[in-house]
């Protein structure tokens, strides 16, 4: 009974008053901050969206995989490999769009490798992801040559009229393409997951593969497809890093974002919008870190001590926050029931 209930209904059916309260409070804070320091507030919020883009893309990748019952801890490595190859494609072709497509294909290929390991070869799924992570660090480090110059990066595209709205305009409607894509993908994946037959099959396979099998769902095929699509989403996150955010490749430039994505996914209880909330929180902490130097003078006197904190403390804030969130807010979040288990026909 419990199983049918959780499959048939999206988890976001009840109104989460705590979440509404938290976000309402934050909205109020933003408005107060905007009234006092409009420029700084807009800068922090814009930075929040940009910083959260790779995180939400990674989290969506995680949701795709885990909803179908496959743990993917290799998102970090998938991001790193596609960031690297996406950058190389850009150097070779000089075309940002082609490079992005290339990064997506790389993500798909690594996703297929993860699926091969964890579904067909029955490797422990966390180990399979670890293989990808180590391989990514090794391969990108080995083939990385210094002196590859950038061929530019995506620039922001302002949407007419909408971009002129105060706060919302610069924050949401004046972004580069991959950031727009990530915002759209949140909605798309939510709809796919909770409103389509494919989504129903995915969730069924993740919760009770044997039952899904008896009604004719090809369990491992669904898992393969989901893990490959998840790889493409991680690939897009990688493309964001080299082709939209930085413009060039640096060693280990993912810097734990893939792992943060997983934390954010758990925080969001495996739902796209929940994960978005988590990634915004993370993006905000990062934005504060990068903007604190500029904000120092604008802080009210009773908050001046924040500006004097050692940069390392602000640097660890997102990670401490993630731990706190995992431990406190989420507690024993319930993952898809069949997660991490190889499905074998009786």
């Amino acid at each position, binding site marked *: 009974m419990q199983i049918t209930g959780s499959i048939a209904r999206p988890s976001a059916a009840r109104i989460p008053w705590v979440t509404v309260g938290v976000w309402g409070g934050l909205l109020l804070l933003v408005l107060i901050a905007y009234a006092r320091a409009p420029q700084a507030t807009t800068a922090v919020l814009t930075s929040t969206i940009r910083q959260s883009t790779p995180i939400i893309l990674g989290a969506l990748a995680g949701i795709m995989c885990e909803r179908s019952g496959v743990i993917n801890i290799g998102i970090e490595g998938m991001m790193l490999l596609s960031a690297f190859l996406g950058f190389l494609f850009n150097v070779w072709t000089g075309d940002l769009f082609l490079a992005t497509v290339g990064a997506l294909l790389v993500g798909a290929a690594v996703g297929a490798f993860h699926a091969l390991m964890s579904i067909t070869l029955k490797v*422990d799924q*966390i*180990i399979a992801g670890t293989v990808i992570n180590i391989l990514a660090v090794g391969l990108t*480090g080995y083939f990385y040559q210094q002196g590859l110059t950038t061929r530019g990066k995506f620039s922001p595209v302002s949407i007419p009229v909408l971009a002129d709205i105060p706060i919302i305009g610069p924050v949401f409607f004046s972004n580069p393409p991959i950031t727009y894509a990530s915002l759209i993908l949140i909605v798309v994946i939510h709809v796919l997951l909770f409103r389509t037959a494919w989504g129903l099959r995915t969730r069924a396979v993740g919760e009770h593969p044997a039952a899904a099998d008896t009604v004719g769902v090809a369990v491992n095929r669904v898992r393969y497809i989901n893990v490959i699509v998840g790889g493409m989403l991680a690939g897009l996150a990688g493309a964001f890093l080299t082709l939209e955010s930085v413009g060039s490749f640096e060693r280990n430039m993912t810097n734990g974002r893939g792992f943060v994505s997983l*934390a954010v996914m*758990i925080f969001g209880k495996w739902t796209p919008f929940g994960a978005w909330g988590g990634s915004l929180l993370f993006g905000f902490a990062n934005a504060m870190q990068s903007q604190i130097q500029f904000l120092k003078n604008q802080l009210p006197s009773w908050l001046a001590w924040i500006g004097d904190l*050692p940069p390392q403390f602000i640097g660890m804030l997102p990670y401490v926050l993630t*731990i706190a969130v*995992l431990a406190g807010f989420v507690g*024993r979040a319930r993952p898809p029931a069949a997660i991490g288990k190889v499905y074998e026909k009786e």
Partner: protein
Amino acid sequence: MERAESQSSPQADRLAPLRGLLRAMIVPVISVVVALAIGAVIISVSGANPLVAYRALFEGGLGSARAIGRTFEKATPLIFGGLAVSLAFKCGLFNIGAQGQLLLGAVFAAFIGFSLQGLPAMAHIPLALLVGAIMGALWAAIAGTLKAFTGAHEVITTIMLNFVAFNLTDWLADGPWKDRSPGNIVARTPAVAPEARLPDIAGVPLGMILAVLMAIAVWWLIWRTTIGFELRTVGQNASAAKYAGISVRRMTVLAMVASGFLAGLGGAIETLGVVGRFQPGFNAGLGFQAITIALLARTHPIAVVPASLLIGVMQAGASRMQFNSGVASEIVDVIQAIILFFVAAESLIRWVLRLRAEEGERVTLSSGWGS
């Protein structure tokens, strides 16, 4: 289910343990050989001669007394990391945080090492090692406690704690514990007192000897004590352990504490034996190498030693390889990842070689996010 033993003569039975050992070794050995072969292909693709590269690699790790010393140096923290990960695996926990626990151990061993002066070596060394190990244990205890009481998964929390540890130790070495001697501008602690440096015993670094002793101690803990038995029971089947009256929470915290103790001790030994002070960014990547080693050793504590020596040889020889043949030292990481792949995908090797999987030989690892 026919077993090999049923067909063998009594004389062959005496060799059974040996054959068991060979059977356990076959997958790791093949994994290493195949990984080296694939590494050779990658080296050729990038336009270098793999034979020249590998020769330099192994000469740099084994070719002289100095090279072997370097290998010991590299292998020591790997043994501690490998033991830490193996021990956690035995309890069903995946400790990716060896990196952070090592950093904490290293920075606190350095602090004891430079802040106390004039203490005899017999007191200074054990004190610095113990403080480092305890700090590593406390750092891991955070993840263990969170897992036991809130269900926050240790894979995520240990990775997050790695980043926190990195920032924290960076701040310590750049702030309160910074080397204030004139001329120093980089973030590092002062050098530890000469009495706190680890000596060589009969030509072998003390750290290496301690590492081997620890491997034996961990083996003893896991296979010869009640705690070890309870730990393994929780790792095999947590709900069965609960029904048998074992406190899963207690064991989870305990396993992480022991795991962090080992990693912290490894960091302390690296600081007192090799580096002589704490510098941020040292031994980056150890956490993941430790996973490779734990799996290569099939989470057996004694086998961690040869597995670490093997990886240690590659690391010690990497710079010579880069110098002699122009092959970037990162190829060692690639080879390690391929080793990990084949060790983990042992069903692939068994299928190719038509080997039967042995009952009870399967290494139980993590089991999803659920608790």
